[in-house]
């Protein structure tokens, strides 16, 4: 008999690339299981994992919510969610295996009895299904409820482990609403769960294209030599959504686009684009580089000129009449919440000095798109007539994160004909053309990583705190400044005029994604 750290599994071999890593025996508890995210993303992802043979034979799934459901009712909900949203085809055998481990615990967060019930439910699962005392708690609940739930878990003895067991807690954004609250949240959670067992889900980091940024940069010789301020003019990171905020007032009012998206997704993208090469792809090395680059990042001043914010008004968008934010149900008619936010960052390192990073996000914009565009400087000398290069723009490399995942390179090419005329063309790599039709959903990858205890795709507390340090000055400035008032923009456009002004002041302009 050997211990777990000395044991080398003889059936595993680094050269054996076919063997997937299957999660060990474990149970996943979802709080807030009746929510949209749980139905549309989490449950289908769990089924897809099972269907791909990546879940352990004795997997347990426990739902916790206020509804008065029996196990069967919950099973039916999962069944319907899987049928409707799963990526892989429905297989009765896989489902019946999975269904055997599905349980439901009815209760509220402040009720001790409910958590005692949860504890006995998990103990029963350990005995019947052999989940081995390994439990992950997915908190798909408002952050205000975190302290209650975390302390309840502690009180019910669900946070303590014995040898060879693990407990992990998964939390979702927002990770606070400013530096102070983020620190407080981290403290609350860390009081019960040590940092290495806290997994903060940023589903963008689970996307193939985002992980491909690392491959593109560090597996190729082609890009690294030009990946610096000698060649790069500026970087634009855009996450645009065409939907509005109907029905999300409770979450969004008072939070706004900047806290909701820039703090986590866009600053993480910035870190991946700007960071130095990690010494290895070990989670700690990767994180060290991300932390370094985030700590060198500052918002560019003066904020009147380098930032923009706006709120959408009603109008016609894509053939539909849509309401403005103030008319959406649940929002106060005086709401000052911004639905569009744009900021300018500078990265104070030798590599990036003088290269602005423009970050923007918004609701009800022209179309749904997330992309990172690295825009290069113009060639210092063009041996052509002015008329020949009139239509030549700047070279650009665009990582399309969603939809239509891929990479585009834009460069000049001669127009066929007997005169010399150069015009922009694109070279395109589409994931859908070159690889799998359906790559795993981000949540599939991330949930599996949680069960395997593989933390590299999850931001840690210092990354979260550094992001708030970057944003806090801007948020304070916006909060202080009454004039000019929050700008309005029409639904279906690319944001308020101030967004264009913030790039135009240095002679640049936003790409139309």
């Amino acid at each position, binding site marked *: 008999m050997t211990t777990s750290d000395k044991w080398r599994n003889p*059936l595993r*071999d680094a050269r054996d690339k*076919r063997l997937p890593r299957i999660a*060990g025996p474990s149970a996943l508890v979802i709080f807030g299981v009746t929510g949209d995210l749980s139905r549309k993303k989490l449950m289908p992802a769990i089924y897809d994992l099972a269907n791909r043979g990546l879940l352990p034979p004795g997997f347990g799934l426990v739902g916790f919510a206020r509804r008065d459901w029996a196990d069967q009712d919950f099973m039916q909900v999962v069944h319907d969610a899987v049928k409707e949203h799963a990526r892989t085809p429905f297989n009765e*055998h896989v489902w019946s295996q999975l269904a*055997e481990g599905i349980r439901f615990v009815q209760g509220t967060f402040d009720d001790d009895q409910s958590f005692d019930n949860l504890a006995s439910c998990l103990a029963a699962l350990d005995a019947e*299904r052999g989940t081995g005392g390994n439990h992950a708690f997915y908190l798909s609940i408002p952050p205000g409820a975190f302290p209650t739930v975390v302390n309840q878990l502690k009180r019910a003895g669900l946070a303590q482990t014995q040898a060879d067991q693990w407990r992990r807690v998964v939390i979702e954004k927002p990770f606070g609403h400013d530096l102070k609250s983020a620190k407080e949240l981290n403290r609350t959670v860390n009081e019960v769960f040590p940092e290495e067992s806290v997994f903060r889900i940023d589903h963008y980091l689970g996307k193939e294209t985002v992980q491909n940024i690392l491959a593109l940069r560090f597996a190729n010789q082609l890009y690294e030599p030009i990946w610096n301020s000698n060649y790069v003019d500026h970087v634009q990171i855009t996450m645009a959504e065409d939907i509005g905020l109907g029905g999300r007032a409770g979450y969004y009012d008072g939070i706004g686009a900047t806290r909701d998206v820039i703090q986590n997704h866009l600053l993480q993208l910035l870190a991946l684009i700007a960071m130095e090469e990690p010494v290895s792809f070990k989670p700690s090395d990767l994180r060290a580089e991300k932390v370094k680059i985030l700590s060198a990042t500052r918002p560019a001043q003066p904020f009147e000129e380098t930032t923009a914010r706006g709120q959408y008004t009603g109008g016609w968008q894509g053939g539909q009449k849509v309401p403005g934010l103030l008319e959406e149900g649940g929002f106060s008619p005086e709401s000052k919440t911004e639905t569009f936010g744009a900021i300018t960052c500078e990265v104070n390192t030798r590599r990036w000095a003088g290269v602005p990073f423009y970050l923007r996000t918004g609701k009800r914009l022209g179309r749904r798109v997330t992309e990172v565009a690295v825009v290069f400087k113009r060639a210092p000398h063009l041996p052509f007539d002015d008329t020949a290069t009139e239509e030549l723009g700047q070279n650009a490399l665009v990582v399309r994160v969603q939809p239509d995942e891929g990479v585009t390179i834009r460069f000049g090419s001669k127009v066929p004909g007997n005169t010399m005329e150069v015009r922009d063309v694109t070279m395109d790599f589409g994931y859908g*053309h070159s690889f799998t039709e359906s790559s795993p959903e981000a949540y599939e990858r991330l949930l599996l990583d949680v069960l395997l205890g593989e933390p590299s795709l999850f931001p840690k507390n210092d990354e979260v705190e550094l992001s708030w340090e970057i944003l806090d000055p801007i948020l304070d400035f916006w909060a202080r400044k009454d004039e000019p008032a929050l700008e309005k923009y029409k639904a279906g456009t690319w944001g308020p005029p101030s967004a264009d002004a913030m790039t135009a002041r240095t002679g640049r302009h936003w790409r139309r994604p």
Partner: protein
Amino acid sequence: MIIDLPSTTTSQINSRLVRLRDEGGATTLGRVLTLVIVTEDGQRTDAAIDAANDASREHPCRVIVVARGARQAAPRLDAQIRVGGDAGASEVVVLRLYGELAKEGASCVMPLLLPDTPVVAWWPFDAPVSPSKDPIGQLAQRRITDAAAEKNPIKALEARKAHYAPGDTDLAWTRLTLWRAMLAASLDLPPYEKITEAEVTGEADSPSTDLLAAWLTDRLKVPAKRYKATSGEGIVQVRLDRASGAVDLHRPDGKVGTLSQPGQPSRRVALQRRSVRDCLAEELRRLDPDEVYAAALKSLSKVSKGRAPAPAPEPAAESGNGKAAAAVKKSKAKASS
């Protein structure tokens, strides 16, 4: 769209492909590999093309089918191009070769290979004795055979072993992945004890069963026994003995397995037999030599064969003439693990 080019040459095929691309958009852009399927001309060719089309949804490729027709006929090349809805995410070129040309498949394949991308050769039915020395096999980085689809699967596996070259692989090995993953995962958990013996039970003519036993003896460095099953399909049972009790994975019905370990409740596992489509997609996922497969092949001779399964669930009654019994079952069962 299906375009027939009777009695043609490869340069005519090529210019037709270029024209199709001009007219129809992005065919052949973003193709990641060329898959060459070698068959005898007949009905089964279409089944192989269908599997390739399905796999192409994961790996967009150009599929070249070399269908060898009657050797006595006059030499002739008939081609068929399939694109769009008739070709999945790939473009399929079917080459029907007659007469002397039937032996010269490589010369027709060469001009149609995509530039600078890997070439994979697949013999869905009968494979050459030494795939790496076959003219088409020599064009390819990776050569996929299927012992289970041959007339004598166990003999075919022996031939694979004798003529192995890096880049060879066999679907009998691919069919094992789920089993291997499940067994490896069971040893990730306590008790962390050395395995003392391995036993694998499966159909008499299931090459995957032999390979699994060989892999276990190679990795675990313990004796492995291979038993003939009296019921069930493909692989039926694996038992890994150790001091505190055996790990046992039993699949009586070809669909659902039961994993039992001492000290833990026995658990059911979905272990359905894999389709050729699945296996092919997995094969195309990696294009480097599979050293683990090579090591397993090498260990085939270390596996000792037994007649009756050790924990005999049913009375053992393997009919004496294994070959005849195998031929009967072949059509339905053994093509999956």
